[in-house]
């Protein structure tokens, strides 16, 4: 999330350079596909778990994680 913020702000070129140099966009893509898979298969169980023990930061992270990674990829484009 910090890497995404730094890349989005455009003030820290180190992050984008590092992602490009170390071929980390493949890892980002694999994470994206993994999160989509988890959301698709375990969505109802995870939502029920969130309703039972409402911790907003955990829930928001679960919901927004895919969006953050995709936006990071979009910035790298």
């Amino acid at each position, binding site marked *: 999330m910090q890497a995404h913020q730094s890349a989005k702000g455009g003030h820290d070129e180190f992050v984008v350079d590092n992602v*490009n140099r170390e*071929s980390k*966009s*493949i890892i980002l*893509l*694999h994470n*994206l*596909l993994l999160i*989509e898979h988890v959301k698709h298969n375990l*969505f109802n169980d995870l*939502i*029920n778990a*969130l*309703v039972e023990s409402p911790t907003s930061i955990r*829930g*928001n992270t679960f*919901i*927004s994680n*895919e*969006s953050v990674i*995709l*936006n990071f*990829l*979009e910035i*790298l*484009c």
Partner: protein
Amino acid sequence: MDELSESISELVDYIHRKLINLINKTMKNKEIKYEMLKVYKEGKEEWLDRYEDTEFSIELMCINIFRYITDNLKKSAMGLSYKIIEEYDFIEILCTLIDLKPYFRINTKDQKIVYTNNKWEILPKSEFNRVNKTEAQLWLSILNLFANEDIRKN
């Protein structure tokens, strides 16, 4: 992003799933008026609403990324253009999205609203005929696909 060229096929699969989902949802919710000042209900519905809103922003982001992929189609693997055109028929998908305009909605006060910068805003009448940023990405993707030599040959 060049190192992604090997895995770009998986990214195209992902984008295809998301755009099909966007089309289905838009057709289903065509008549529903959007509540701009949404107060999330408590419990399960709150999480489902948040999930739906996030999914929508993801689906629109996919349009931007797909435009980038079509920009660099020449550099991509040989089979990718075949997959985009023959297997998934992306031109049909893009045309459907231009027709459905999921980025425009009507709010509860019967005003036209537009999705820009990850939020819904009321569209002033002077901008009704203006091409939206997301719509421009759709048109550019179609242009890139038609302008690609490999695709024209086939």
